[in-house]
């Protein structure tokens, strides 16, 4: 009887998707609801929680260290968007050219850094940006007559180190996204444009860029997400969650500091909810501006 029920065509689809329903409820809906609830409480691990209303949120708005972390994450996100969208797009277009030599080799080389874990990549960059005269970046700068710098102790130079790490790791990956987008553009468009006497630049702005739009939106969406939720890169560069004057502190870093290091779970949950709201607002605005919610024509 039970077997017959489970084997019917009506019930089978639910059996197939059941694992997802369970995981979604247990590991997403429940924690998310829990996080929302905690953000209105004062909680420490293993103890009764006290309701404090919107206290956590009002406190956050006046918390200069939290605001600093939001600022850092925002700057980091903007910098990565400026570097990691136009350049990979340009490189992809150049490398996609059939007359280009060594395309496979360059694709692989650009992708290599993405294979390293953040821990390893972060360690490498921390040592490269070391403050000694002999460490790699200072060494190279010295070659051009620049005095050795303490990169990880200053705000601007700290951003440079973070951005270099992100650029190194993700240029190749974003380039691959654009390359796979380029594959979907028919050659005939370019041939037709050539017959009409279009220049290479005109082909790029009139054909390539508009037709790459879905890929660009995708890369933009994941970059916003990744930029705002960055944490371990900073943790590795500064060898922990503490940087001088919090120059490397990110939103998730602050969440981690409050929640795990200080066991201040309610306050940290509020940080998480703010991060969620910021991410959703930016991405939904971006997606609606780029026309993703409009009906396809």
């Amino acid at each position, binding site marked *: 009887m039970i077997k017959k029920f489970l084997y019917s065509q009506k019930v089978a689809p639910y059996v197939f998707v059941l694992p997802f329903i369970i995981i979604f409820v247990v590991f997403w809906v429940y924690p998310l609801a829990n996080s929302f609830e905690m953000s209105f409480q004062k909680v420490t691990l293993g103890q009764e929680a006290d309701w404090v209303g919107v206290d956590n949120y009002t406190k956050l708005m006046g918390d200069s260290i939290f605001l600093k972390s939001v600022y850092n994450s925002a700057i980091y996100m903007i910098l990565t968007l400026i570097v990691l969208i136009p350049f990979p797009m340009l490189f992809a277009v150049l490398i996609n050219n059939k007359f280009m030599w060594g395309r496979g*080799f360059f694709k692989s*080389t650009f992708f290599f850094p993405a294979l390293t874990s953040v821990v390893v990549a972060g360690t490498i960059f921390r040592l490269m940006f070391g403050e000694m005269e002999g*460490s790699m970046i*200072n060494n190279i700068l010295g070659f051009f007559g620049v005095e050795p710098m303490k990169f990880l102790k200053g705000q601007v130079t700290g951003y440079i180190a973070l951005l270099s790490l992100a650029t190194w790791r993700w240029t190749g990956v974003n380039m691959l996204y654009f390359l796979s*987008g380029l594959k979907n553009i028919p050659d005939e468009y370019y041939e037709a444009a050539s017959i009409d006497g279009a220049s290479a630049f005109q082909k790029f702005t009139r054909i390539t860029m508009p037709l790459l739009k879905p890929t660009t939106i995708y890369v933009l969406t994941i970059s916003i997400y990744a930029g705002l939720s960055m944490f371990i890169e900073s943790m590795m560069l500064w060898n922990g969650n503490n940087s001088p004057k919090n120059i490397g502190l990110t939103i998730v870093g602050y969440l981690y500091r409050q929640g795990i290091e200080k066991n201040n779970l309610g306050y940290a949950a509020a940080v998480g909810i703010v991060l969620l709201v910021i991410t959703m607002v930016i991405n939904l605005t971006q997606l609606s501006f780029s026309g993703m919610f409009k009906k396809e024509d």
Partner: protein
Amino acid sequence: MKKENVIRTMLFIFFIILSFLILLPFYAVAIAAFKPGEDLIRYGLNLRFDLSVMTFDNFNYLFTGSHAYFSWFYNSIVLTVVQVALTLIVSATVAYGFAAYEFRGKNLLFICVLLIMMVPFEILLLPLYTLTFNLGLMNSYSAIILPGIANAATIFFFRQYLRGVPKEIILAGRVDGASEYGIYARLILPIMKPSFAAMAILNGMNSWNNFLWPFMVLSSDKKYTLPIGLKTLLTPYGNNYDLLIVGSFFSILPIFILFLVFQKYFIDGMTAGAVKG
């Protein structure tokens, strides 16, 4: 020389320079693995190739010293294999449910799949941490594996792939008297094989390099995975550079070799989400 060839040569030189810059950190690590630890402390990571200071000491220490490096390595392999196997089979099953049937609540559920891809996992860290604590799963691999077992991106990829499989196969299976589950297991799974390769690589790479969540869950040296173990070599009281650098070098190696062999699958898996469905 023709104008076209000039442009071609210039582009080639430009990309060679970029590749050179990208490879520099790898070069620095590779030569640092042969330098004594104090060299790193004194000069940082650099490009100086000096045969007179180079030794095999670090390698010697890695292979013979009293440290847990190879058990971290082993843990990483075991965890990656188990995690990938479970994630693929569960995600494929769910994807088949979405691709092959029409049922009530399907659209809503699928929106939930997409939603997971848009919510930063990081905001779940604390509630998942307390949940893990309350379930008594701290310091266990199940706490690492379970939350990602129905992986949204993987489900999405498999579903896109399955949409390209003709429905007639399912109908033919039914006519021949196979059960719904028999059709999936014997007809569909074999067809999905190529897509498994791409997702195995992508999930494997993520699992091998995964850090934050395992770092929060695992607390005993014996259970550490490679990235966590390497991270513990950096302490406020001093850094074990000799082991760290050669250990990092060896942690990149397996995935590097995999990449060289299975390049196509890395790229297919990586770009899967970007292709419009």
